């Protein structure tokens, strides 16, 4: 299956990655054989198999007691964000 540079442009847009034309050419040449290789999965008979997104259902693990703990301070949580000023979490544009 061939992924054309034009198709790849759509994918890159969906993924919010800006690529120049040279990159689109190169990545489409690199990714086509991988997509092709992955397409062989269609050979496998999965008619009697149902979906699972995990190797386990984790039924035994997800419920736990709701115990309050000391939260991380906002200044720690957001210390790597750029739009900050003292006393606020971060700045956004006006929300209308």
């Amino acid at each position, binding site marked *: 299956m061939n992924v054309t540079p034009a198709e790849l442009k759509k994918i890159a847009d969906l993924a919010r990655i*800006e690529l120049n034309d040279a990159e689109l050419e190169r*990545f489409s040449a690199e990714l086509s054989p991988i997509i092709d290789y992955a397409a062989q999965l269609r050979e496998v008979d999965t008619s009697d*198999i149902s979906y699972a997104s995990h*190797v386990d259902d984790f039924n035994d*693990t*997800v419920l736990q007691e709701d115990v309050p703990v000391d939260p991380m301070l906002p200044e720690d949580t957001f210390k790597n964000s750029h739009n900050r000023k003292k006393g606020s979490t971060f700045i956004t544009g006006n929300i209308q």
Partner: protein
Amino acid sequence: MTISETAAKIRSGELKAVDLAAEHLKAAHTTGKELNAFITVIDQAIERAKQIDEMVARGEDPGVLAGIPCTVKDVIMTKDIRTTASSRLLENFIAPYSATAVERIEAAGAVIIGKTNSDPFAFGGSGENSGFGPALNPLDRERVPGGSSSGAAAAQAAGIGMFALGTDTGGSVRQPSAFVGVTGFKPTYGRNSRYGLIAMASSFDTVGVLGNSVEDVALVEEVLAGKDSNDATTYDMPVPAYSRDLKESVSGLRIAVPEEYFSEGIEPLVEQRVEEALEKYRKAGATVERVSLPILKYAIAMYYVLVPSEISSNMARYDGVRFGHKDFADYDENLRKTRGAYMEDEVKRRVMIGTYALSAGYADQFYNTALKVRVKLTKEIETVFKSYDLIAGPTAPSVAFKLGELVNNLLQMYLSDIYTVTANLTGCPAISIPCGMGAGDMPVGLQLMAKRFDEQTLFNAAHFYQTSR
């Protein structure tokens, strides 16, 4: 000297943690630098080692890893220390908290001397994708140390740190361990906490250990394993004393060897060394039998659909708000341009493969099909484990390749994970141990895989091989 022997000397005061830390830090700054094994060397480790010595002087017990110098892969968060995921996208990221794995080894007395280089976000099998340049194989500096835990493997093989924390999503602990000739272990999915690990593919990721011996690795795993309330996929099951309970007998052990592992693409000397290793098990009373598992042919195909799909979702958080670069005022412009500018090529490739596999029109053909094939594989592997204790084979089809050798052949690069991905697809524990030398006098790895939560059988069988020379 083993970790346990070294820790005993530190706990008795015979050996000073500070001297050991100084020695390893010096090696990190010299040999480690030449190998490009580290992104950050943690000089404050000296202070931490002093605290360990002071605890000993006060009569307190610092723990089973007392004063043991170790390294941590840079995709694992270390509070207040730069954690880059080996990507330029996070080159200035200071971790606001430590991963559970880090907290646990530190609570047991370990001294972290540095953050190791890897493929960015652990995407790769050679270390060459790193935003900070490739790490080199200490056994032959023209070769890769494997990946993605490239710096961890390079440091471990060069004797820098007594163990290394790595991550294994498709073989990223085991394959580099094989390439540099050390022991590399990947736990059962759900055994070790993923909290504080920068996510790659959340249903595959595990924190694993590289070490000098099975005994050392088993001891570290005792510290890492167990329930963590911050990771809902961890199990509340007792953690056995793996290292204390190690057995050297393999009599009666049943080992399955998939014949698909010895098809095209394997180097003759890799095959020979693995056969010789299996012969050793046979002579010691184990049953070693060939089995047929045709579905293994599809392991790489399902892996390279499911993992990039999970990656594309996990990577959406790098939006320049909470972390990442902020070069443009407009949110959307910054998002597209900084992801384009700072994501390494392999990061872009995987995000795009995943986006493709999940996009409308292709999701059924790729993502949903791969999920079903994964269930089928898991069932077939479970069936094998009804008759056998272990599945054995090579860790990788080749020895460590030359730097640059596979960078222009992406599919070939991906196929070097062909034997390791099955353990991640099925959630099983697996280990790679050195089993002699292959082409170019480079080490070969023997891989053993056990059923889920049967780490003890895995460690016993690997320990047998290492102690029966």
